[in-house]
């Protein structure tokens, strides 16, 4: 256990060292003028929100737009709801179990928002906050990293196992290292799919739960090496999963050592040196259609697996958009605006806009009009 922790710390350190040592050649500045449509929208302008704009804190952990079009933001100091151009804060004084909001998921059928914090789970339902703690409910642990809703079940990724709450019966089921193949109980992320749930576990890759057969299938890094990617495109890039996302049949895995994609039959892996991926240190990955938005410590990369766009700041603090088309040189564009901070912790995006939770503010991306951007690639 201790050895593993040390390994991870080392791996993270190496990743950070690589990322700080210089820009890989593949992203060398070029001035291409390719106007071919991209398979996903291109960001034209960022609009950023900081403390002076009504944010309670500069640290933003997660963001999502709910089905009623309200924007929800999880911060170091409570959750925010953007209504009528203003942020309304929901904090401990409103019944939230802890101020540090780490993750959120909406139950689209009822409009309830489930809010994971550093200490407990919360259900925000039309103004009422109901809390679930490890002491007063079947919740496995109070530290909640990720949430997912599949049918009538809420899946809760915690620091001590995966909790599953049956929303109709109230029954809790816990999966951890004692009853699954998890090596450790640190569950970071869950993503619901058709009849399946993908679970990202620190150190144990990805577990897939089949809702019909009620069994787990394990996806592990084939080389089982934390530091180096020895076997490419054969499984998860690394077992230290930081996030998983699923949409339209595509599973995306982010780690602190690169990222992976699984379409149900074939795995692909990417590392920063060997691909346009801006950094191996990935905090978060968001799937929309067949496109992934990748939040790293050095900016955001967007990709459908072939075409890439990265948004980051250059050494002078200017915003850059680096466009990499298959077989084409990198096209670098200077932007008038940029991400509020390149350390990106959460993303929400659709065909119209994208939001970024960063360590120093909330960013809102306005997409450019066609022909420079296109609809998100879909399987349809």
């Amino acid at each position, binding site marked *: 256990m201790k050895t593993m922790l040390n390994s991870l710390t080392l791996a993270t350190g190496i990743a950070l060292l690589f990322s700080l040592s210089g820009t890989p050649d593949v992203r060398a500045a070029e001035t291409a003028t390719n106007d071919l449509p991209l398979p996903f929208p291109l960001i034209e302008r960022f609009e950023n929100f900081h403390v002076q704009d009504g944010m309670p804190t500069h640290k933003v952990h997660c963001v999502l737009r709910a089905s*009623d079009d309200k924007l929800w933001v999880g911060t170091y100091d409570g959750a925010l709801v953007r209504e009528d151009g203003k942020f309304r804060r929901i904090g401990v004084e409103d019944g939230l179990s802890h101020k540090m909001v780490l993750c959120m998921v909406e139950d689209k*059928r*009822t*409009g*309830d928002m489930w809010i994971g914090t550093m200490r407990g789970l919360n*259900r925000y*339902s*039309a*103004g*009422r906050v*109901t809390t679930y703690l*490890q*002491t*007063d*409910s*079947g919740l*496995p*642990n109070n530290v909640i990293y990720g949430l997912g809703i599949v049918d009538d079940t809420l899946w809760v990724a915690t620091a*001590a*196992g995966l909790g599953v709450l049956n*929303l*109709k*019966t109230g*029954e*809790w*089921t*816990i999966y*951890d290292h*004692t*009853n699954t193949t998890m090596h450790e109980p640190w569950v970071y992320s869950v993503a619901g799919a058709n009849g399946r749930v993908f679970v990202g576990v620190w150190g144990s890759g990805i577990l897939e739960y089949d809702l019909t057969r009620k069994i787990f299938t394990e996806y592990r890094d084939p080389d089982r090496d934390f530091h180096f990617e020895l076997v490419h495109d054969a499984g998860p890039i690394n077992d230290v999963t930081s996030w998983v996302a699923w949409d339209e049949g595509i599973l995306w895995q982010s780690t602190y050592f690169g990222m992976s994609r699984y379409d149900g039959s074939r795995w692909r892996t990417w590392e920063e040196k060997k691909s346009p991926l801006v950094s191996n240190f990935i905090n978060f990955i968001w799937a929309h259609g067949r496109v992934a938005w990748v939040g790293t410590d050095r900016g955001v990369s967007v990709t459908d697996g072939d075409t890439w766009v990265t948004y980051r700041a250059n050494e002078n603090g200017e915003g850059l958009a680096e466009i990499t088309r298959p077989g084409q040189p990198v096209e670098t564009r200077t932007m008038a605006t940029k991400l509020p901070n390149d350390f990106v912790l959460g993303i929400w995006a659709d065909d119209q806009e994208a939001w970024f939770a960063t360590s120093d503010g909330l960013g809102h991306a306005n997409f450019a009009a066609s022909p420079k951007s296109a609809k998100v690639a879909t399987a349809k």
Partner: protein
Amino acid sequence: MKKRAFILLLILVCFASVALWLRQNYWIDHMRQMSGQKSLANVSCFNCHLVSTAKLRWAQPRPHHDAPAGMAISPDGKKIYIALDDRDEVAEADTTSRQVLRRVKVAGRPFGLAIDAAGKNLFVTCRNTDRLAVLDTQTLQETGSIAVGMAPVAVAFCRTAAGDRLVVANSMSDDISVLSVSPLQELGRPSAGREPFAVAITPDGTRAFVANRMVRLVSVKTIPTSEVTEIDPMTARTVRREALESAHQSEGICAVPSRSWMLTPLVKVRNLVPITQVANGWVMSSGLAITDVKSGNVIQMPLDEANNYFADPSGVVVDSSGHRAFVASGGGDVVTVVDLDRMAAWLDKADPTTKQEAIYDMSLSPAYVTARIPTQRNPHQLTLSPDGGTLFVAERLADSVLVVDANNLTEKGRIILGDGGLNDPIRRGERVFTKAAYTFQHQFSCRSCHPDGHVDGLSYDFDTSGIGDNLLDNRSLLGVAGTEPFKWNGKNASLEIQCGPRFAKVLMRTDPIPQKELLDLTTFIKSQPPQRVTRNEDGTLTPSQERGKAIFFATKTKNGTEIPHEKRCASCHRPPLYSVRLSFDVGTGGTFDTPHLLGVANTAPYLHDGRALSLEEIWTLYSTNDSHGVTSYMNKIQLNDLVEFLKTL
């Protein structure tokens, strides 16, 4: 049978003789060890042995009665449909002749009724089978059925832009089933407050309001609130939740068409104030919550008078013009008539502070209460004819429906459903249980704190041992037969003592209930079975519940360490009652009676003062040093398993 008993006795005698021969104090040691009591004054063999639930009153067959529950009137006003939940029937009666025309069987305790706009379909919530049945009003035959949440008690029909909808209050699963009528399917199940009990639709059909009977679970010294849940019936999404401060027991809700109001009868409760008196509504009083449909603001208005109370407000109905509201007082045997114009005029003049303080003014109601219509026992649900000219009052414990001319408030007659059941001591006892006339100024009934014999989820501060921190959790009366002694300190040897002089002195502040009525009352209480629980229909347990059962009956910890007898779950909570009916110290500040665990899942909060808001908290927060059984060896999965097993009892 006699032979078996004789053989058993013989074996026991032989065993006893041998034991006595071996060791003189064997039985005393045995009783001490098994009971965990230093003094054996209250201990007998029967604390542990020869206990059977089969012979308890609640396990015996009982007479059934024609008690009217929900009612619905056909759109043309000619027919009234009445749910007879205790009979598993729905009755159809002619509103003019007041004669019952037909009665049909509907399985599963039919309780709430609604009828569609065309009058073609009658929708019935079946409280015991967790479903909604559809009856064709022409044939009264069941044409459809759909599973909903647990213990549905109310249903409302509404038309939306997306089609016809049904909104069902599921009282035990604390949620709301939103159904489309065609096809009959569940669109969503948003969470309600605690024990949703009544549904009303705004006149434009855009909103459904659900009244909840119990307060939300909060720590014992926190001011409790119940909830009015507002949902969009078209999308099944929750829109808003209005909190009713220190109010509960809402069993009715009704829209006021002309004023954009939603009316909810309530019991205003003052459980946090030491019960040094009951005068001036010190413990509870009746009120009517006015929810502004547009803003969600709530004002609570009193319904009682300074020296006379009308307990257990239940059903509410408003005439089509919105001028008058009728509120049934189940404990007071009246229907209170509220002049809504006068109430609105008072509100118009009152400043915001005065409005918020209105519910505390026990002299206020004469400003808008214009009449009290006397009824027979236990008026509950109310409904009005479509033209607003006739009021129907379900007299639940008289097996009748009172028909009142709503214009001049005179009695037109009754729809007779049954004989009142006065030959049945259980029915007579229920009439005592629900009657407020035994208490000072008719302030409350047994039911006021024990709706349907259950709990209100509150802790009260009795002053019997002086003014101080004496909050005690209200305990359910369901399944208490055979679990004497009663009271948390175990000092009341029988229900007759508990409900007689003790209740009179501590709460009623009157003379005790007369002996004959008291015996009926205790017969009724003993006939109440434990709360229904969720478990597999065939009685089998899920794997988690099986594991929990093994933990409950474990004699050793996971690593094989012996658990001392007095620290095993089943030693004190011994089946079949899951209580040995003795008092123990579980580390909560004294020695307290061991509650039985039948139906325990639905009786939160727990422990003598209600400090544990969930079963988990009993062990995660309040069992330091294994004071409440050896449980510290369990991991979270095992604790969840144990809780899942307890939910099946």
